[in-house]
């Protein structure tokens, strides 16, 4: 035996020993026994055949009686095993192979199983586990991502669930297959199953969810779930609303050790729950600020009356010191930037912070009507939510007690007021109120406001306050005739919304009237009227039956004045006509120009007719008028006798020089003086009656200064030229030019010494 033969023998012995040890049985390689298939690996697709010692080759074919047998290439290992490739064999059907050695000629049949194509894998998105079915008798499952080519052992454990959860962010396709069961010639095992895909869909977008900082309620859907961000377990949502105290109790002041954890946020996650067919959505995280308390130190509650209370939230400096700034804490007044709100919890009800209807407080004082906050109800106040803060912890006012409104304000006693239309008068009455802040808002009669003034409330011994109210303006009321001659009740409205509509009444008597008339008095001409009578006469209509003075006297005219001057008159009461007849004598009228300054000539001035009940009537008027109007380029002139004389001399000398033949001696004298021309026009009302006026004289300072005149308009207008020569011959002085017109019919003169003033100096 050579060396290699010895080695072969040894190896064979070792191989036999190994087989014996491995199988636990003694195996004797009987002569003629064929090759055996010892290992089929369906993952790496190899099949290992053990040959007999005498075999130098192992052959295989697909038929027992094949004419051509393929040799398994390669060399035997120490155990006389040789491995072939089976990757060429289809996995879709069972496949039979026969093996033999070149010496061990008896073929051995091995049928490779087909692949399991019924394996199924389904994702359960609720717990991120994968459910398998039709696994055959294989226990192991392998998986890989679609992007990977490496199969890994799969187990439904928390770590895997965690990874699958992570895949949902972007979505992924996973592949699963059962593991192989390695085979031998006796038991060919099982191939890995057909790989099946499980699509893990990308998460849907996070649901829209927000916290209403006012109602402290999340708008949610039943399909959602939530958890605090630092928790790991999701909680169910079984309603369409989720209250803050349920979701995050520590966000509420009452739950959060009652401390002001300002600046701290509580983080809550929301998502749409996984269903049996869909993974959970992406997460929406809300950062919720911790609720603060409502500090009531600057919130003052009080009643304003029987129907109203008020909340005053004003700036207030506290005695406590702010830790951060080192300064005293200041509570700011309510404003739109520091808004508060209140709600009313009626008797027998309990505050529900999620459903309560809150009313904003954006100014220092807020008044609340008793219809809003009835007896026994409790008012809660809190700071309104802002974009960064929750509404603060609600606090009850009035120490939490039910409201008890005081009695209503009232009159100190009933008052009947009377007045005369148009006669200013102040009428007073007294109001008894409960609160010194109470003001009178308005007083109306027949829905028309009366002007009034109210005194400061004066505290009384019984704790009430008295306000003296003075009605001082009823003009708007009197304008409406229906309000006259009738008794009206005052409707008094107070600032606390209380109203008093009985107890104060007002009666307005109609004013006395006179038919309006304007009389004209010409200066320098005796007054005369159209009528035959020589007096101005008119009736004062009293307009109110049984009109009496306040002290019960009959009504009469107590005085008539014209521009402040008493006018003499006579009166006569006409009971039938409920009027008083008034007469003013002509000579009284002729005095009128004396009562006026000349600048007031031309204006209609009232006769002020005063009655003894305080009434005053002014629609009978008279105007004082000049009968002639004077027009000149100047209203006055002045002249010096000497300078005029030297001017005349100069003119005379020039005339002499210019009248001789010597043209060379001609001189020109600048014209310095010309005779003034003045136009006098008689009022047409006078000339209409008497057109016979003519110019009787024009004098100045007693001297006739008329140079010439023309007249037109049936003698109504006279254009008069004053002679300067005559003027300078008169005595020096300063006086009006006096024109006298005279009627040839009546012989009456109109003396016009107004309108043109001349001063003559030496």
């Amino acid at each position, binding site marked *: 035996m050579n060396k*290699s033969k010895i080695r072969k023998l040894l190896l064979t012995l070792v191989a036999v020993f190994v087989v014996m040890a491995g199988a636990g049985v003694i195996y004797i390689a009987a002569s003629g026994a064929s090759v055996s298939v010892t290992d089929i*690996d*369906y*993952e*790496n*697709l*190899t099949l290992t055949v053990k040959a007999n010692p005498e075999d*130098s*080759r192992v052959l295989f074919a697909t038929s027992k009686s094949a*004419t051509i047998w*393929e*040799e*398994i*290439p*390669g060399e035997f290992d120490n155990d006389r095993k040789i*491995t*072939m*490739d089976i*990757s*060429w064999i289809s*996995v879709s059907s069972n496949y039979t192979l026969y093996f033999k050695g*070149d010496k061990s000629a008896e073929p051995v049949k091995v049928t490779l199983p087909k692949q399991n194509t019924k394996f199924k894998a389904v994702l359960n998105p609720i717990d991120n586990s994968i459910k398998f079915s039709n696994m055959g008798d294989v226990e192991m499952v*392998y998986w890989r*991502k*679609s*992007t*990977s*080519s*490496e*199969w*890994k052992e799969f187990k439904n454990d928390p*770590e895997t669930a*965690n*990874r699958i*959860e*992570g*895949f*949902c*962010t*972007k*979505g*992924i396709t996973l592949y699963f*297959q059962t593991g*192989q069961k390695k085979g031998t010639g006796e038991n060919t095992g099982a191939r*890995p199953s057909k*790989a099946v895909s499980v699509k893990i869909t990308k998460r849907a977008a996070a649901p829209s969810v927000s916290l209403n900082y006012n109602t402290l309620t999340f708008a949610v859907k039943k399909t959602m779930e939530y958890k605090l*961000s*630092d928790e*790991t377990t999701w909680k169910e949502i079984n309603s369409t609303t989720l209250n803050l105290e349920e979701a995050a109790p520590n966000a509420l002041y009452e739950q959060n050790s009652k401390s002001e954890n300002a600046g701290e946020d509580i983080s809550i996650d929301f998502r749409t729950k996984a269903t049996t067919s869909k993974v959970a959505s*992406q*997460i929406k*995280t809300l950062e919720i600020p911790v609720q603060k308390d409502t500090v009531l130190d600057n919130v003052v509650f009080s009643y304003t009356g029987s129907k109203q209370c008020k909340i005053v939230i004003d700036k207030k400096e506290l005695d406590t010191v702010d830790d951060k700034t080192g300064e005293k804490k200041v509570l700011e007044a309510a404003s739109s930037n520091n808004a508060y709100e209140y709600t009313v919890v009626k008797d027998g009800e309990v505050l529900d912070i999620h459903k309560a209807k809150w009313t904003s407080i954006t100014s220092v004082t807020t008044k609340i009507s008793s219809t809003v906050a009835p007896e026994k109800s409790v008012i809660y106040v809190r700071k309104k939510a802002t974009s960064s803060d929750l509404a603060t912890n609600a606090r009850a006012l009035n120490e939490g007690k039910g409201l008890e409104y005081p009695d209503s304000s009232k009159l100190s006693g009933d008052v009947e007021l009377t007045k005369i239309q148009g006669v200013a008068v102040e009428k007073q009455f007294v109001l008894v109120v409960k609160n010194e802040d109470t003001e009178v808002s308005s007083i109306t009669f027949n829905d028309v406001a009366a002007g009034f003034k109210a005194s400061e409330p004066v505290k009384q011994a019984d704790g009430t306050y008295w306000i003296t109210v003075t009605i001082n303006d009823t003009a708007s009321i009197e304008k409406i005739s229906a309000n006259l001659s009738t008794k009206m009740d005052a409707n008094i409205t107070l600032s606390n919304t209380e109203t008093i509509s009985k107890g104060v009444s007002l009666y307005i008597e109609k004013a006395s009237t006179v038919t309006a008339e304007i009389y004209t008095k010409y200066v320098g001409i005796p007054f005369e009227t159209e009528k035959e009578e020589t007096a101005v006469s008119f009736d004062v209509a009293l307009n109110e039956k049984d009109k009496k003075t306040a002290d019960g006297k009959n009504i009469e005219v107590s005085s008539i004045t014209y521009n402040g001057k008493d006018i003499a008159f006579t009166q006569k009461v006409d009971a039938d006509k409920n009027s008083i007849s008034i007469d003013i004598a002509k000579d009284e009228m002729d005095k009128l120009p004396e009562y006026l300054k000349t600048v007031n000539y031309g204006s209609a001035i009232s006769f002020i007719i005063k009655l003894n009940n305080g009434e005053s009537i002014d629609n009978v008027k008279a105007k004082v008028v000049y009968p002639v109007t004077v027009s000149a380029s100047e209203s006055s002139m002045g002249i010096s006798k000497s300078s005029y004389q030297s001017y005349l001399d100069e003119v005379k000398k020039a005339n002499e020089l210019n009248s001789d033949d010597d043209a060379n001696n001609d001189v020109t004298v600048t014209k310095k003086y010309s005779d003034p021309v003045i136009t006098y026009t008689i009022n047409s009302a006078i000339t209409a009656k008497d057109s016979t006026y003519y110019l009787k004289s024009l004098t100045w300072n007693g001297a006739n200064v008329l140079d010439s005149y023309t007249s037109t308009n049936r003698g109504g207008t006279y254009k008069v030229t004053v002679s300067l020569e005559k003027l300078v011959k008169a005595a020096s002085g300063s006086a009006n030019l006096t024109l006298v017109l005279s009627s040839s019919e009546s012989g009456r003169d109109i003396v016009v010494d107004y309108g043109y003033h001349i001063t003559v100096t030496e």
Partner: protein
Amino acid sequence: MEMIRKMIKYIICAMVFVFGMTGFSDTKADVTAYAAEAETTVPKAVQVEAIDYEEGYVLIRTNDNTKVYYSDSKQATWTQIEGNKIDDCLKLDISWISVNSEYELNLKGSDDETIVTVELPKRNNSLKVTFDKVEGILDFTNEEGATYFEWKKAAATGAWSKAPVNILDAKADNDVKLAEEFRKQIEAMRVKGGKISVRIPQNPGTSEINTGSRASNTVTVSITKRGSAPSVKVTSNSMKTNTTTAMEYRICSVDGTASSNMKWTECEKSMTVSELAAEVLASAGNPGKTIVVEVRKMETAKVPYSKSTYLEIPGQRVAPDANVVSTSKTTKKYTMMISDASTAKPYQYVVVKAGKEFVESKATWKNVTSSKGIAFSSNTYPVGSKIYLRLKGKDKTTSASLQLPSAYTEISISYLTEQNK
């Protein structure tokens, strides 16, 4: 010796494993201590612990941040990384990121918002691999300096195997082994042919700076099967084979003893069995030895060698015993009778005229299947002519195996002379 060496190797491995375990548990204790300390630690910027492109994740150490967010290069929207922390680490799935372009991944914590940027590389998409069917190796293009590749049968679900890119020139022991294993498995596939998947493996990242590289594109390489074995036969009559010069052969065994020289020898055209192996012929009264010859088509520059045909040639029988031959002569005739010739035991003979040369392989053998006399005329075969006699051989059929003709016996033809008459 080999086994002992292997055993020592296993023991060392086991020891290393045990020590390794001990070392690991120490590390774990440190981690626990660190975690206890961490309760008072301020959160720090997040860190990348590992990047596994095959598994498709980035392992991020949160450094005590409550949440970790990621974004793309725009950093417009930040998405929270889902899942629960394990050992202060979160796994971010990156299998959704395209392998075909670089990707800037930005990370930040919810507490320490320092942005950590990770540049994820794109895949080498240009790897090309072809099968050198002559050498039985893979030729790589654009392997980008990789020293190893990964492969598995295209249909296999098992793990990738590793082998050195330079298969023929592997130096390190382990590389040589890997290369051998690769070639062995490829060879096994060349019976039926098949497909393998090949890629350059990933180089996992270890930090946000060292991001490693992705596995290359996977190339499917067809492994062509070898050509079918040549149909080589022995014609028993001529003891010639139909070999061609495109074939090669080697003697596998002689009388069941494996040949010590397994070198391949180029065939000549129509080689005789003795040209293949002289031992097959009987000599010195001893029968020839049974030989097994493996014949295949030689590889050319383009075609690999084929599968093999195995010729089992039984040893030649010794020449027929002279005792079976009886003769009778006249002056004109020489008659030969072979006593045991039958169809079951056919003989063959050739007559060579005096002066002519006998060439066994070219001779035209006549069959003898009975003991009837065979007469030769002196006119045709003068004295000095010779008869060569042998047992007839048999060609291989599906039911019978090959039998070479036996060695031959030489008989001289003679006639009665007048004197002898």
